[in-house]
């Protein structure tokens, strides 16, 4: 066991786990930030997507000791104060989620995409989002939601 300090959503956390422990288990099971999901454990599904210093990464294949030196980690819980990030509003407006399990990953990947490229083409959206699986088949509504934000077309009542 070793003690690690993590900065997640601007909050300082400390956790005692073994070196080599997956960042996903630390975030979910040790710290209780369960919005980030497990789907495959091998960087294939994207359900565990978080931001590390603004870059989208798959938490399941990261190890805790590599991210305890002041890196800024962001999870879905820290994307916005009140669930009112433009993407979250657009997600509601387009009624994107079905079961919802993949959606934290979808939204975190999309947030990183728009920060890098506020006005992506549909092809760019597809290629950047391609790593996030959705078994319920919500892809078209996810695309629609991202395009809503890119074009600043989120209905105000959502």
């Amino acid at each position, binding site marked *: 066991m070793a003690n690690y300090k993590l900065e997640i959503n601007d909050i300082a956390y400390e956790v005692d*786990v*073994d070196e080599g*422990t*997956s960042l996903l*288990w630390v975030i*979910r*099971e*040790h710290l*209780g*930030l*369960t*919005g*980030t*999901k*497990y*789907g*495959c*454990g*091998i960087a*294939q*599904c994207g*359900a565990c997507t978080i931001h590390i210093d603004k870059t989208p990464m798959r938490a399941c294949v990261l190890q805790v000791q590599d991210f305890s030196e002041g890196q800024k980690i962001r*999870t*879905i*819980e820290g*994307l916005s104060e009140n*669930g009112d990030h433009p993407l*979250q509003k657009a*997600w*509601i407006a387009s*009624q*994107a*989620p*079905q*079961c*919802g*399990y*993949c*959606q*934290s990953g979808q*939204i975190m990947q999309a947030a990183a995409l728009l920060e890098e490229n506020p006005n992506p083409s549909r092809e760019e*959206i*597809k*290629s950047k*989002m*391609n*790593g*996030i*699986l*959705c*078994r*319920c*088949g*919500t*892809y*078209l*509504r*996810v*695309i629609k939601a991202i395009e809503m934000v890119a074009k600043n077309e989120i209905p105000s009542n*959502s």
Partner: protein
Amino acid sequence: MKKSSTYSRRDFLKSSGGIALFVGASGILPQLVSCSSPEEIEKVLEKHEVTAWVKLSENGDITIFNPASEMGQGSMTSLPMLFAEEMDADWSKVSVEFSPQESEIYGSPGWSPGTKMMFTVGSRTTNSYYTTMRTAGAQARYVLLHSAASHWDLPIAELSTKKSKVVHEKSNKEISYGELVSFLQMPASLPEFSEGQLKDPSDFQLVGKNIQRTDIPEKVTGQAKFSIDIRLPDMLFGVIERGNLHGSKPTLLNEPEISASKGVLKIIPLDYGIGVVANSLEEALAAKKKLAIAWSESKASDHQSQEIYGSYEKIAASKDPGRVLTEKGNVKQAHRLAAKTFTSDFKNDYVYHAQMEPLNAVIKVSGDLGSAEVWVGSQQGFDTKLGVPEILGIPPENVTIHLQYLGGGFGRRSMNDFVEECAILAKEMAPCPVKLFWTREDDMTYGAFRPLSLQRLTASTDAQGNLTGFSHVVVGDGGGLVASGVQNDHYDIPNQFAEWREASNGIRIKHWRSVGHGPNKFAIECMLDEIAKDQGKDPLQFRKRLMKNSPRALATLVKVEELSQWNKTTASDRAKGVAFVEHGSLGSGVCEISVDRDSGKITVHNFWIALDAGVIIHPDNVKAQMEGGIIMGISSALKEQITIVDGKVQQSNFHEYELLRMEDVPDDIETFLISSNSHPEGVGETATPMVACAIANAFLTLTGKKLRHLPFTPERVLEVLRS
């Protein structure tokens, strides 16, 4: 919208003030219970199986309880909408919570009349609960009317309701439901409300509107709770190694090493696997990796999934009859007298559910082993307590199920294997709760697949080209798992016959979205195109003639013809294909595809659907089900394949079992909903079976070649193109 959650019977009325209206629960006198008085709740709890469909608060808040699982199909919105519609509740004041899991109270008779069941399967939820929810809502409204009538001392017949208000038009008086709470009183008896006394669908205010789904806000913030997210004090973690040969028995070879492994608390051997419980998830997984297990042979040991079709063909050709599924007219005679007969075989490899949340459950067994609490995402079942009472040897009423959101179901979560496993582990570790965790590898390798199957179809036509006989032999494991969807009730074919012939290989199998409809519609709809092509007829017009006696089915076909601009020529490298599916609702679909002749890759560019599902409760959600169903259909038709070598499942994770990703989605999926006042039918499984046949039919038009083996992987497509 308030956060949804499940309560135990005892807790669920205590969560806030207000009045619970006990209506719609059979065998119980309708009554009101003040939720601000804990003593009174306790008193009622002692006397009755306490239940309520709705809770009213003085401030006007209304909580409606949803009896069905929510796995993305929208029950958390559509069922409460039905209740609110009849109650005339102001939807902006409504929040929704899961009901307790008590089928005597919250079950519906939809699966078989006279029984009560809570079971979210077969796209039956809306169909089954349509009348139950509306009647309960109407009874709640009646109690409000009755209370206002006696409060004002006016005849009930002069009162009406509107948006959470009782109104007396004559005197211009009104009182809100919230204000009525302190005057609520129960009538001596409640009218039963037959169908005719409920609202006429054309008067619906809420039903048929595109309101926002109640579960979505918490699904965009990460707050929605799936059972995998449950964390309890002192919770331990359980994992099980089940091997990759179904039915095989394990012998653990390194018990001392595993016992000494860090954090391991207990090794729990099962018939088919070795369980390990540890303090943390990472310790449990690390120990699982170290397990050295000798596996016995099993019934599946000789199974080679890609070579088995030869023996299935023999079974299809044999003289031994199978179980007759449908028989109409005299198909043998029709074949004998035919001017022409057509025969084709259709093959379907194993398919895996791949719900995004791997199986898991959390169970806490009490220290005296006499009761248990279960947190689980389940499609429920015949046994509302999911097999836990048997395992613990305790009465069902001592088991409380806290239903959570399901991270996908698709039929996999209507099997309780994972809940029972968790109960076994939790019993050993009582009173500590145990989270049983299936890794993706566990979930895939020890999956319960849609069975491998072969369909042999023979059709005959007379001298005028009329379809006179249609026979359909299904070979595969699992009866209904491969046999559903063989009926052709909407095609006017005078002589029909279908049978199932068993072939069992020891592989775990299970319902997979739309079940036998997938393989069987693939076969039927491709056969129709084969005949139409032979006769030089347009496949859509050919179907129209066959549907002349089924006006509702025909209307979907006519509509999709228009929607897809069927008759307009597409680009020369593209083609359209059509298919019709009944699965409760009736749907016709058209796809537009192209094929890369170098790589063998098929691309679906567009999909159009016309659907008749009776009364549509929530149109946008029905469209979402069509979109999801089509995408799952494309994924399975083009990519998904479980293969078995020497009985061993060859795929373990998404790098080996690929799902459709965003770059391969169609440009658009357009759904037209045909308006209807008929009893609603399910929509969750109508789209998926359209896809494989529509693609194969488009492929036939485009290339003149027949795709007859699912999935249509690039290698198979190339092989067919070169044939």
